[in-house]
């Protein structure tokens, strides 16, 4: 059996994740690899920040991460 499960999609998806979430890969001149796994290996350091607060906490004081920067959070901008 060969299975792989990505429990934490680190690729930011428009319409799903807050438009204010940022990570390194968004700001370097590199063509994102269409394979999320390769892309994540290169640039997913797990470091996320909010473009509005410029910290790793959103306007509501809670952490910035793809798993929680989604619709339903009061400060989330879709």
């Amino acid at each position: 059996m060969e299975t792989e499960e990505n429990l934490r999609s680190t690729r930011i998806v428009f319409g799903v994740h807050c438009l204010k979430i940022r990570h390194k890969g968004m700001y370097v001149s590199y063509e994102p690899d269409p394979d999320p796994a390769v892309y994540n290996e290169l640039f997913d350091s797990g470091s996320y920040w909010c473009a509005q607060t410029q910290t790793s906490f959103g306007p509501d004081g809670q952490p910035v991460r793809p798993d929680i920067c989604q619709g339903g959070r009061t400060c989330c901008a879709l």
Partner: protein
Amino acid sequence: MPNFDQQPPAGGGAPTPQGRGGAPGGAPPAGGRGAAPAGGAAPQGRGAAPPAPPSALALKYPWPAKPVLLGTRVKRIDGPDKVTGRAKYTHDINRPGMLYGRIIRSPLPHARIVSIDLSAALKAPGVKAAYNVKEPGAQVMYQGDTVAAVAADTEERTKDAARLVKVEYEALPHFANEEQAMDPDAPVVFMGGNTRPGTAQDVGDIEAGFKQSAHIIEATYYTHVITHVCLESHSIVAEWEGDKLTAWCSTQGVFPSQQGLAMGLGIPAANVRVITQYMGGGFGSKLQAGAEAVIGAKLSQMAKLPVKLTLDRKEEHLDTGNRPSAGAKVKAGVTADGTLTSYQADSWGTGGAGQGVGNLPIPYIYTFPNRKRTHKDVYINSGTQRPMRAPGHPQACFLTEVLMDELADRVKMDPVEFRIKNAPVQVPSAMYRTYLPEGAKLFGWDKRHATGDPTPGPIKTGFGVSVHTWGGGGSGTQAHCDIMADGTVVMKCGTQDIGTGTRTIVALVTAETLGLPITAVRAEIGDTNYPRSGGSGGSTTAPSAMPAIRLTAAKALEALFVKVAPTLGVSADTLVATNGRIHVKDDPTKGVTWKDACKTLGADTISVDHMWEAGLSSVNSSGAQFTEVAVDIETGIVKVKRILAIQDCGLVVDRLTCESQIYGGVISSMNFALYEDRILDRVTGQMVNPNMEMYLLAGMSDIPKIDIILKDMPERGVVGVGEPPTVSLSAAIANAVRNATGAAIRSLPLHPHKILAAIEQQKAGGTL
């Protein structure tokens, strides 16, 4: 001693390549994209997407086969400005009427703000602005978290005013380390929980692999948290003119900072100009504007005067990022003939408050056909991580490469031979099967003794080796070239020089393309008024900017040829530019000097915009590093005696700046292994060494001779080299210490007390 002259054939003799391309949590791309001539061949290795084919313009203007400047040792064009003090870093910028800003920060690792009283500060002499960054009721999540800010007319008055800000806190539960946060009885401190499962992986048949194994090692490996320690601290000088902001920032990205300031302040990005002429170290921590820049700009907006806000060393340690920790409880198997079988790991790591370690590419590089992994991000109450030179790779390299030496010992194989046997398929971006034997010969690896220096006396010596990889690559950067009637050439690009020599290579590639000396070109960078470029991170600066510079200069030259051709009575497409002249390609006597050619412009200026196109750069690189150490087994002090770094980076643009990057990377990795350590008090959660006295860094006398072997691969185009050489030396040092002492070394940093403890543990029976 193996005979390294007998190498396995390229692409052959390797075990089965790992699963599908780029499995999360698996090894980094072995070969990956662009592993062949730039933009050309099909992808190799882990199934990554093929690179875009070379553009027509890139095919028309490939990198020259016989360059004049490319690949030579060109000194930095701004070197004299830097050593004479003419170069203006952000801290050197002074504006009329300028104030000084300061941030009031939380002394507690987790608390609720009960009240903030600015009244006394606002009445203090010289104070022009103060405000609450957080409001009462909000929480501070780590020591150093921002609370309020103040600006006054002198630095001293600003510090005095900051001390007058009264903040009342209600202390809340906190975690100072991963163990506290992972305690099942711990209170929930972070939204979503104190930990979060990461990527799981199950490839092949892990148990079948273990059954095939003649030897199995079960052990725990760990790397610690370090901070970026930029010599130039994070800083901003902000000045408003109406609703428009000019910000001199110490940043790795003028355009990312422009957006960050605009969104942080709620103003149009077009109203923000960011300037970074010189920058003194960022290492990933300056890819965002940062709260400090927004706060400085807001203070300036409130006071209606320019504000300089420069963080001090303590603030740098507490709140400008760090490299996350990484640990892994590993079970790994190997057959009697030294073939890797199964790798099982439960890993974890913390990037501070609400941030994890992210993707951790273990097992690193080597081929385990069967792999099973779980991962857990752990959140503690410390400053949050920011990207730091090859995120995830130094940790993953250590966790894997130390294990590799232990496995090699189990099967009684030389560590170099063992690595070659288990290295991925050889491709141009993954040349381990070449670099390892080549390095071994150059280093004198045949003089390595078996694990444990048998010589008498307290000083034991040992050899260590490790390999690394990184991606990099380019796209997107734009440039603008002016050729003026007096012969002046200006190349403008909104990239920035973060200390790596970008300004120099912008001028170099322009000069090479135009057939001019480098002194004939003015390179203007570090300003959002110039054409757009990305942040300088991920080893993408040179591969993004150099193709843009090359093609923009080539297009400008084409335009000049059109002007000059009629005066020579030839067709423009017969002309070339070399050695300060424009002449007919097949008849160098038929031509004019550059200055005379430019006179044909009359009142015009050639003004050309262009951008990066595929075909002049590639992604991915590989390298190997060797080291020899001496360990005093009575004191536990490790002295690195020498280092050999083999590194490929495609086309070498400037050999001098390229080597400088490798020196810097190697020293950084040495610091990671032997010196740097962010220490949090396990009870108070406060950093006990937020300075540069007790937070150790290598001094000049600690740094040994470093030999660099640059592997030229001009056919691949430009490949970034900022990150790869910073990955593997720490693991090589750990392996060398183990080779010297015979003691298992499974965690960093290698401070003396840990070396002594490892030696004592080994004497007591060891853990092997």
